[in-house]
């Protein structure tokens, strides 16, 4: 079985290892490029949201590379994301590709267990053993990636040579990807602190802090958000995304963090009383939390035409006005230009830097 799944940020590093340990062969797509997105845009419905277009383009690349099974997280809820799998499968079948669609959802758990069993030559005992090993490896890699990215985000605004910082991140991610044994993964993770600390600093101590909220794909995938975390880092801003690939896997894949969900619900209740998808409730809650924690600004990214993302915007604006925090909404799609986004980011950064008041420079 040659498996492919939609691509998002650095999540494939952990997911590839997990699936490989389970006994599947993984086809991982090349990093998205302009050509990928154009391919997806050509096949997808015109007014569909941009994550659909990018993942569709990626799936074509995977099928061309020989994948025979496509895995999607699906489900029935209000946002279009739950329907990606079935619609993409139909489009790809009409394009003449042959493959099997494997949907991951809560009501299909027995079928998923059967799949894992089949990959282990029908033996339940080895399926369980491999399953546990796979979860361990996946978890270790995911935490290692998260630790590395967190160090990168913190170092970026204060580093003398941002290029070196980016290169170190890329090297470390490759090392994690290549590490097979748990000890090796742990060793890379352990080295992150020292290696980032060793980069020469530019002497900046005080830096504005910005919270990045919004739709998961736009927050996590640097290709779509024009590498917003690193770009803002280069401008001397410390970015704290509310979601990372690691948190996405834990939060949505295994439903961890119940406390945080309840906390966000309580915080956002005066503004937003019903979660409709697209991280709407989290965005409102995180904006209010960022204001409480003394952040200097909030950037809200969502795909153009995203149903929850657009309908939550007036609420975000109102919450930002009520709390006095600087707020920048960014709507992204396949037509967004890097220069346009950068200009807006630069304007936003100079706004929060010049803003009088006690908030800045804590």
């Amino acid at each position, binding site marked *: 079985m040659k498996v492919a799944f939609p691509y998002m940020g650095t999540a494939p590093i952990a997911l590839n290892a997990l699936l490989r340990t389970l006994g599947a062969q993984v086809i991982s797509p090349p990093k998205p490029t302009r050509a990928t997105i154009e391919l997806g845009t050509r096949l997808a419905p015109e007014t569909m949201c941009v994550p659909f277009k990018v993942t569709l383009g990626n799936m074509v690349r995977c099928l061309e590379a020989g994948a025979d099974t496509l895995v999607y997280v699906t489900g029935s809820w209000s946002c279009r994301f739950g329907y990606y799998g079935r619609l993409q499968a139909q489009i790809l079948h009409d394009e003449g590709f042959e493959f099997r669609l494997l949907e991951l959802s809560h009501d299909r758990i027995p079928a998923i267990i059967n799949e894992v069993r089949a990959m282990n030559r029908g033996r339940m005992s080895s399926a369980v053993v491999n399953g546990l090993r796979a979860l361990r490896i996946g978890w270790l890699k995911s935490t290692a990636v998260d630790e590395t990215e967190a160090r990168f985000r913190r170092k970026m605004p204060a580093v003398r040579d941002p290029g070196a910082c980016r290169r170190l991140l890329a090297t470390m991610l490759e090392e994690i990807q290549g590490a097979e044994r748990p000890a090796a993964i742990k060793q890379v993770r352990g080295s992150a602190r020292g290696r980032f600390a060793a980069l020469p600093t530019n002497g900046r101590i005080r830096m504005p802090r910005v919270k990045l909220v919004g739709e998961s794909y736009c927050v996590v995938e640097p290709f779509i958000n024009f590498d917003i975390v690193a770009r803002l880092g280069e401008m001397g801003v410390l970015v704290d995304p509310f979601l990372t690939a690691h948190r996405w896997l834990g939060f949505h894949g295994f439903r961890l963090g119940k406390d945080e969900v309840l906390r966000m619900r309580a915080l956002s209740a005066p503004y937003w009383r019903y979660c409709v998808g697209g991280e709407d409730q989290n965005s409102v809650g995180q904006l209010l939390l960022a204001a409480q924690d003394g952040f200097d600004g909030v950037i809200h990214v969502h795909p153009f035409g995203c149903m929850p993302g657009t309908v939550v*915007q007036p609420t975000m604006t109102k919450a930002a006005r009520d709390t006095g925090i600087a707020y920048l909404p960014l709507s992204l799609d396949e037509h967004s230009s890097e220069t346009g986004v950068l200009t807006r980011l630069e304007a936003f950064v100079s706004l929060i830097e010049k803003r009088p008041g006690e908030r800045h420079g804590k």
Partner: protein
Amino acid sequence: MGWEVVLSEPTSRPVLELGVRLSPAELCLPVKAFLGHVAALRDRVDTLFLPRIVCTCVSGDWFFGCPKAIALPDLTRAVFDSLPLIVEPVLDRQILTEEQSFRNAMPGRNNRSHVRKALRLAKAAATDAALRTRTAGSPLHMFLDQGTKSEGRGTGHGGPAVRVGVVGHSYLLFDSGLNLGVLDKVKEAGAEPTVVFPTAVEVELEAKRGSAPNWYYELELLAAARRLLESELVDGLLLVASFACGTGAVTNELIQRAAVHRHGVPTVTLLMDEHTGEAGLVTRIESFIDLLRLRKR
């Protein structure tokens, strides 16, 4: 429930423009119109009835409203600074029965037997309205004269008569303040517009196929398109949707693929927004109908 009901006026250009000014640019036309209607009503009433219609059960599976429809009360509160009291029953049968949600939403008027009776009456009225909609061919049956049931002008332009199936959300298809009278334009171009209203059974069958997305409005569109293609045998399919309609992007794609790949029926999608011009609309409808006529010859 003892309330006097005040309705807003039919959608007009000023109402729509009011909504457009209040709303973020990216929202769809019907939501902008909705905000315009709220703006027009809010000074004339002391209570706004804004149900949050979350989901409904169709043949054993949950079907949801679109996120924008579910979030309308929150959106309204964010957009307006001052509002009358909002009565907001949350219609989510996964959590609450209908009776509970209405009783929770109306403190002071939540006498159980009262609410039950009101719900029973409302449901009877809804069933009756659905039946009349089907016979009159329009949800606006209460405003129509008996004699003016839609009859195509037929072949005024010469050549064979063509039948165009029209599929779209009824809030768009039957609000001429939003769609610039698209059904009349089809008639004026010399074709017969066919709009069908699927029965509850057809909608359930559509849900049972398992291939439909889990939105209840969209089930109706898919069922309508299926009937138009399979039993009404229309010559072409006109899909009317609003720009930035998220669910429509999915449904129209499914309908188009079914029409073109499996039935060989041409389709055209008309995307509506506040900038849609009448001349452009007419040109596109006329050229589509000319094409259908050529195919028929």
